[in-house]
């Protein structure tokens, strides 16, 4: 097998770890970081495919990074404003939207 396949396996594994992380942790910041990890795993996939399907795929990596940055900025802002209210970062306690 070649490096591309191994990279894809690695990407899948990292993605799976990310999902497991979201499920396992209560700390909303860590969950966020797991999402970042998942995004990066996707980036890896995109890079692998850029080798066969065209270099444009790498452009999307940029977009993903830009969206991730935006998401991190807004998400962290939300976390800060929630923290101001509740003094905690435990997602299980953020259930205002649950009806």
């Amino acid at each position, binding site marked *: 097998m070649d490096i591309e396949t191994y990279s894809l396996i690695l990407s899948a594994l990292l993605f799976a770890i990310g999902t497991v992380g*979201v499920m396992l942790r209560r700390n909303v910041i860590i969950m966020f970081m797991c999402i970042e990890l998942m995004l990066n795993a996707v980036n890896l996939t995109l890079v692998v495919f850029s080798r066969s399907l065209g270099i444009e795929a790498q452009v999307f990596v940029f977009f993903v990074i830009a969206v991730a940055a935006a998401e991190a900025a807004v998400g962290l802002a939300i976390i800060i404003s929630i923290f101001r209210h509740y003094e905690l970062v435990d997602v299980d306690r953020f259930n205002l939207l*649950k009806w």
Partner: protein
Amino acid sequence: MVNFLESFLRVAQHADGGYQPILPGLILLFPLVGFVINGLGAFLWRDSKRVPSLVGPLAIIGSFAVVLANFLAMHAAMPHDPAIVSLWTWMAVGDLSIGVDLQFDQLSVLMLLVVTGVSSVIHVYSIGYMREDPGYSRYFSYLNLFVFFMSVLVMGANFAIVFVGWEGVGLCSYLLIGFWYENREFASAGKKAFIVNRIGDFGFLVAMLLVFTHFGTLNFVEVFAAAPETLVFGGGVVTLITLLLFLGATGKSAQIPLYVWLPDAMAGPTPVSALIHAATMVTAGVYLVARAGVLFAMAPVSQATVAAIGAGTALFAATIAMQQYDIKKVLAYSTVSQLGYMFLAVGVGAFTAGMFHLITHAFFKALLFLGSGAVIHAMHHALHQVHRHDDPNDMRNYGGLKNVLPITWGTMWIGTVAIAGIFPFAGFFSKDEIIWSAGSYGYTVLWVVSILTALLTAGYMTRLMVLTFHGENRSGADVRPHLREVPAVMWVPLAILAVLSVVGGWIQIPESLPALPAVDALHHWLEPVMEPARQVMTEHGLHQAHESPLGGGEAVWAIMSTGLALIVVMLTFRALVHRRYRPASESETPTGFAGILYNKWYVDELYDRLIILPLLALWRGCWRIVDVGLIDGTLNAMASGTRMVGWVGSLFQTGRVAGYMFWFVTGVVLILALLLL
């Protein structure tokens, strides 16, 4: 519009010199204007008595004058066909066309004469009777409105217009019965009258539907002209129409089984009882049957029903009247009974006799009611001055009033003798004709019942007079000095009616009576209207004059009946005049058979238990069980079902991101598995 005004104000004689209605619109306009002025007055110049005392009676007297002019004109011309005055088109839809049309023929003009005449008298009387009532103006507005609707009823040229008057008088009756609406019971009585009347009106309404379906018109002239050809004699349709019309009549004219409202209707002011519940409105049923004489003549089954119910009511109500102590209740049951008489008459086909009794009854029963009103008025004042709250209507509180109310006493005796059917007072002639018709047409049972009722009538009326005017006074020593004869404005009407109660019968004197001039004015007058009905009956072999059931001519039976009545009056008088009654507050309620009569055969209670309560329960059941339970229940069950599903779904909405993630991943896994494996 021009046409409208023209017909409204027409005075010109017809070119050929025949009869042409004179100022027909004014007959209606006068009372209507009176109603409007007094009605506004009830709000605007509440305390003024002058305007209503002037406008109220004058409106009716004006109406009466126009009617009188019409009567005289018609008398001169004696037209064969009715004159129709079309005011405007009421409804014209498809092949249905109903105009606001007035019919002037002998029957309607005669009835109008009675209605406006008696109304005028009673309006004048009301000035005195109602003088101190705070609702004076309102009273006259209702009374004017009543005369308006009654005139509509009488003059209507088609079933629909008559129905307008028919329900309109019912409305006025409702308003006037509940005139003292602050008393819940009085208002209730009004309500009862209206609802019971509505049952009758339902009959009238359906009858109209049937008439229109079969004739394509509701105009009397056309319907009655076409009836003999269009409908089968004695057939189902004509029987149904007439029975339904009669159902209407039983409501309005208080016959079994719908008579129950009339005694309660005595809650209204006494002049109202005299006008509406004795002289005019309640006779509308008889008028209707006479008006639709052709149809009734074609339906022997209906005729028999009318006669039987009339006779039954006559006897039944008379028995109840025997044991009432409320002076107005006695008169009320007496009215029911006399109305039964009239139906008996029209039922056996003697339409003219029915109308005859209607007229004389209007005179003497109005007289009796107004007399009782005078007594009540006097009693009420006296009781009021000593601040006692005894019932001023209860005869047990009267006694010996002839000394303080001599005019009332005298006039009321005239009325009593008249209603008892004693020669030569009005009631004798009209009653005699009914009894004779029933007998000679071969209705033996009805004939017996009518004689029996006549005797009962003499009995209870004498009892009323004795209890009220004779014996010793039971009103109490404090009240006695305050009793006064009523003012002239009240006794003059009494006197007028007393005169009419004497001479009213002389318009129709049978030739068989010895030593009297035969007068055939009424028969002759009504001939053109009643002719078609008579023709139908003769064609089908009905009402060939039989012999009287026990033989003998009319004269024999007339003399016998008047003699019997006289004997009953005298016997009753002698039996009761020395009996000691006690005032109402100290009396016990009667027991035994008298108790049953006193409680009016418990008919009200029976209706309550058998009809009203079950109906109310049914209605409440409809609401609680069907509406709230069944329909809304089903809907709510559906809604809760939806909510259940939602609740189950919401179990997954734990608010934990991890949970959502798990389901999400599981979903992805499942989809992948489906795709790949």
